[in-house]
């Protein structure tokens, strides 16, 4: 749906040239939540701003729904931008307007009548869960509420794409989660394509379907979130995965302690996606005459199921244990007997 070809941006400063985005190729499917992660200065913001041409590309192409954004005239670009919503780290609301008036602003730009604007604003206020606060000014809202206004405003003209530049980076963890689930909600309800920029891997882990890792203006790794999590290739990707999964070395240290258990067997269960795997443990407990004792682990929920490792002590009859293990093997969960 969105195709990006050889997209580059060079900033000219007095003394030097900065290659902020370097010959970037990407294609993003309709209805997916596509994450772009990278450290500060990697060129993420520049990249996302090239998509709606808040920054003019030095070279390359951006195509959305067969419309080549990069070749549009100024006037056509303005019309196209109404179909590309954008939310920002610092919300960027008009503080002189109330919540409702802020949401009505893009509708004024699109030339809707006052009646239509009020009606649409009320729908959006409901959608983002701000009912009752419509007459408040941004200064009277919390960060999370401000971002909800930002989201409502971005959705006002029924865009095809939503661009999010560090939309949760100024929020506390709890508020971040609520904004992320609002984004998932919108993605599912409206089938909206979302491009999400962040420097936090847990944001990718929680809501993205696919991810691209950026470093020095280039995409160094991309793929399904689950694949990137389970087989990170680049050093920078490995670091990001460690952000949420912890260091593999820690696990090894723990393992040596776990090895000291005297009864039964120690199993290392590795979850890689698929929602069914979450119930595996309870199924084993029900089906077989064994006791399960979860000792240690780290499992994260992603958009395509659970990912992570659990260490489980399994005790009982040897035969039952054997059957339980072969049952687990038959599921998508990988087992290692220690």
């Amino acid at each position: 749906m969105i195709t990006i070809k050889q997209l580059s941006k060079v900033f000219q400063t007095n003394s030097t040239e900065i290659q902020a985005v370097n010959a970037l190729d990407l294609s993003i499917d309709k209805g997916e939540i596509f994450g772009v992660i990278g450290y500060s200065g990697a060129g993420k913001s520049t990249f996302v701003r090239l998509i709606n041409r808040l920054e003019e590309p030095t070279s390359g192409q951006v195509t959305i729904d067969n419309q080549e954004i990069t070749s549009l005239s100024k006037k056509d670009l303005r019309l196209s931008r109404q179909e590309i919503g954008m939310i920002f780290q610092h919300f960027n609301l008009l503080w002189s307007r109330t919540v409702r008036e802020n949401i009505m602003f893009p509708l004024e730009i699109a030339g809707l009548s006052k009646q239509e604007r009020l009606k649409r604003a009320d729908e959006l206020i409901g959608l983002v869960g701000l009912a009752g606060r419509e007459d408040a000014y941004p200064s009277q809202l919390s960060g999370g509420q401000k971002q909800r206004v930002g989201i409502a405003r971005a959705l006002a003209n029924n865009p095809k794409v939503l661009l999010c530049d560090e939309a949760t980076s100024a929020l506390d963890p709890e508020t971040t989660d609520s904004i992320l689930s609002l984004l998932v909600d919108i993605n599912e309800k409206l089938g909206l394509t979302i491009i999400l920029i962040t420097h936090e891997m847990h944001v990718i882990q929680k809501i993205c379907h696919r991810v691209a890792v950026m470093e020095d203006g280039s995409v160094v790794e991309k793929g399904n979130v689950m694949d990137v999590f389970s087989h990170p290739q680049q050093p920078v990707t490995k670091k990001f995965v460690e952000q949420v999964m912890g260091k593999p070395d820690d696990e090894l240290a723990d393992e040596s302690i776990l090895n000291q258990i005297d009864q039964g067997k120690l199993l290392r269960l590795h979850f890689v996606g698929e929602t069914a795997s979450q119930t595996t443990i309870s199924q084993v407990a029900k089906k077989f005459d064994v006791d399960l004792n979860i000792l240690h682990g780290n499992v994260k929920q992603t958009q395509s199921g659970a990912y992570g490792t659990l260490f489980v002590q399994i005790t009982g009859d040897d035969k039952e244990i054997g059957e339980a293990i072969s049952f687990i093997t038959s599921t998508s969960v990988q087992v290692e007997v220690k």
Partner: protein
Amino acid sequence: MMSQLFPNVIWSDMVVAMIETFYMTLLALLGTFIFGIMLGLLLYLTSPGGVWQNKIINLIVATIVNVFRAIPFVILILLLFPFTDFLIGTLRGPNAALPALIIGSAPFYARLVEIGLREVDKGVIEAAKSMGAKTSTIIFKVLLKESTPALVSGLTVTAIALIGYTAVAGIIGAGGLGDYAYYYGFQRRSYDVVFMCTILIVIIVFIFQFIGDALTNKLDKR
């Protein structure tokens, strides 16, 4: 009591002088507002990174603004004599003071407008652009709207400077309290008249300050 303290004050003349001061201040303020906003916007929009980024126009406007701000008001009045004569047809009375008052204070206000516009969050302008806003929408609905409190408080400061200018303009016979204080007070050694004019001018200044502050507070939703 009042006639003992102010034996030489003719109250009906005082009222006329006060109305003239109000008249000059308000009309000059209106002109200053219009030209100041236009110049301030031009300064802001043509500055580096602005919507109409243009070094040459920016330099020209900035030079005009700086030159007129540098000329002392008394000299500006004298300098503008031919222009005023041509425009108003007379050199006396409140109307004759208006060109000098406006030309003297508009550049000052233009700088305050520019500062106010700079205070508008760049991110908000960017957000408006991302929604497909035209430049005119950005100017009227974002820049001017978001900076309204700064524009009003700047106008208050300018109004008070203007009241001072109207008094100076009195020396060349513009009418108003400055004129009255000079010709009917100072020149006739009636210091009670000078003193009364002072009190009234201070009251007018306070009125403008009060209204300006109240308005700014009401408009400021930050």
